[in-house]
């Protein structure tokens, strides 16, 4: 049996919200094969109905509700002078309560072969009678569930252990975006669907399989929330960095303006923190919120340091530790905390994530100088983003003076091309590669003394692959 809450926002006073797809997602996410989905409204002015989703018919229903229980028809419930304990924000909504009597507040739907059993024209509606509001439905799924597949099956992806159910994370991301208002969900969906490595969710899922309490659905919920949080920070970053493209698509700021970018970033920052709070593990909530604070603080440092571009090694490490490594470390620690792993395991994984995150950023810096990466070469130079190869090239005895001179001036195509050539001609990239590999070795070393329930090879492989890449 699985119990969940389905939350969504309504937009109009009376509204038929088709929740069929959301419920289908829940069934798929749970891996339910055969059984029953019980659904219950948690409000006295929100009903449920199974009927046809045909716009004119829905208008007929709304008119029928209005005829049966018109607004302002002298309901005693609306006579606040006669009622006790009336809240300050109590709405005048007697009509909505009466209309709810005509509907039902609960429903049981059958599930067969992993899908809802519905007739051709049947859709399931949550019927808003007093909107717009935040609404919540309780769900219970009761029946037979598919066992989690082993390494080679069911969406884990080749080479990943069963704990890393990437399909669960993708479903959870889809499900969350389905219930969000269109002005925020459309830009976020564009970013989420453009891909990305999903390293942070993988780290959450892996580490959530280490302790004694292993719950793949909770792990997927946390992993998806961490990915949303990561994407929310990217949306604000792109505005700050004046980036026009990310993952091959226009950034929110470039496509829809900075005002929308700020709003979308804020929305998903808040939504992710809410989803994490709803998981109900205080250690997890603290770990993620501390990481978020570190990210924001280091973003301020990052921008401040652009006046001294390209900066130095210590400044670089301080910024990268906050900007990139903090969320890697939090992903590792929070997954372990979710599974009730012991504190020594949590801390070892936190250190592993921190070192891996720094190494990952160094590898990312090197990609900026690789013509085979598929990304425009020299973007970090153009945007004056902190980059270790540039720092090392600027320190180089041979090319350093020219690199520093070029970086101090206006950076057009010719200057960016020349700086790129100088970095490639120096030993800067090799120094960064060696340093990143040393960090990966240190990260792997953190795993040696703790019990990882067979996941050590995967965590080691993930660390190695994070550095050994060209895209």
């Amino acid at each position, binding site marked *: 049996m699985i119990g969940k809450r389905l939350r969504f926002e309504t937009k109009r006073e009376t509204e038929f919200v088709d929740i069929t797809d959301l419920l289908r997602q829940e069934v798929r996410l749970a891996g339910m094969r055969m059984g029953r989905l019980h659904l219950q409204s948690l409000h006295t002015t929100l009903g449920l109905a199974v009927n046809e989703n045909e716009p004119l018919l829905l208008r007929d229903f709304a008119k029928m509700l209005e005829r049966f229980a018109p607004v302002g028809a002298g309901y005693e419930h609306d006579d606040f002078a006669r009622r006790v304990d009336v809240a300050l924000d109590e709405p005048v909504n007697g009509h909505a309560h009466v209309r709810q009597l005509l509907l039902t507040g609960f429903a049981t739907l059958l599930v067969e072969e992993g899908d809802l059993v519905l007739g051709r024209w049947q859709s399931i509606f949550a019927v808003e009678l007093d909107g717009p509001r935040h609404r919540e439905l309780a769900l219970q799924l009761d029946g037979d569930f598919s066992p989690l597949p082993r390494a080679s099956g069911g969406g884990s992806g080749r080479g990943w252990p069963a704990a890393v159910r990437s399909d669960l994370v993708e479903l959870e991301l889809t499900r969350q975006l389905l219930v969000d208002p269109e002005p925020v969900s459309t830009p976020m969906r564009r970013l989420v669907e453009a891909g990305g490595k999903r390293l942070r969710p993988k780290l959450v899922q892996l580490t959530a399989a280490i302790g004694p309490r292993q719950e793949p659905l909770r792990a997927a919920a946390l992993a998806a929330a961490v990915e949303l949080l990561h994407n929310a920070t990217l949306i604000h970053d792109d505005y*700050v960095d004046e980036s026009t493209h990310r993952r091959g698509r226009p950034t929110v700021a470039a496509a829809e303006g900075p005002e929308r970018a700020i*709003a*979308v970033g804020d929305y998903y*920052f808040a*939504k992710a923190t809410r989803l994490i709070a709803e998981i109900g593990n205080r250690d997890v909530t603290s770990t993620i919120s501390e990481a978020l604070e570190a990210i924001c603080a280091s973003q301020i440092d990052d921008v401040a340091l652009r006046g001294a571009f390209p900066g130095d090694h210590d400044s670089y490490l301080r910024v990268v530790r906050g900007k990139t490594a903090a969320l890697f470390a939090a992903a590792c620690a929070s997954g372990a905390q979710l599974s009730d792993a012991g504190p020594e395991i949590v801390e070892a994984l936190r250190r592993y994530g921190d070192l891996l995150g720094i190494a990952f950023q160094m590898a990312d810096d090197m990609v900026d100088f690789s013509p085979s990466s598929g990304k425009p070469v020299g973007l970090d130079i153009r945007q004056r983003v902190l980059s270790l190869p540039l720092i090392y090239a600027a320190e180089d005895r041979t090319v350093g003076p020219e690199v520093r001179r070029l970086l101090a001036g206006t950076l057009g195509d010719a200057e960016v091309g020349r700086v790129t050539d100088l970095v490639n001609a120096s030993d800067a990239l090799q120094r960064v590669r060696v340093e990143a590999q040393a960090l990966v070795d240190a990260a792997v070393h953190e795993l040696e003394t703790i019990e990882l329930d067979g996941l050590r090879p995967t965590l080691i492989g993930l660390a190695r692959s994070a550095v050994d890449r060209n895209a």
Partner: protein
Amino acid sequence: MSVQLIDRELDRLESLWDDGLSETYRSYMEAVGAHEPDAQPKLALAAALVEIGVRLQGLGGRAAAPPTLLMGDLCLARSSRLLAGAASQAVQVAFAQAIEDMSSAAASGAAAPAPRALLLNALKAR
């Protein structure tokens, strides 16, 4: 106790204290009496940081310049960390929903709900 807390929690945000944050904090202090005494200053500061943070960002209005946006981001993040340590799950969820309401209204161009009213309501969540 409260003064020490404020000192500790204003790292990098000190300039905001005399620029409206202190007054906003005091307003929220009047609304947290129902919470545990230890939690009251943290919750009031968390609410004040959200209110000041979204104002700095220009949420629902003209976008702030990048450095100011980042200050606003840090306000929201610090608020989140304060809530993680001091607030019940219901209050944490209500704060997040308040920001969701403000930002979705801003994204859709609708009139933004007043942060003060939303946050005062969030502090009452049980």
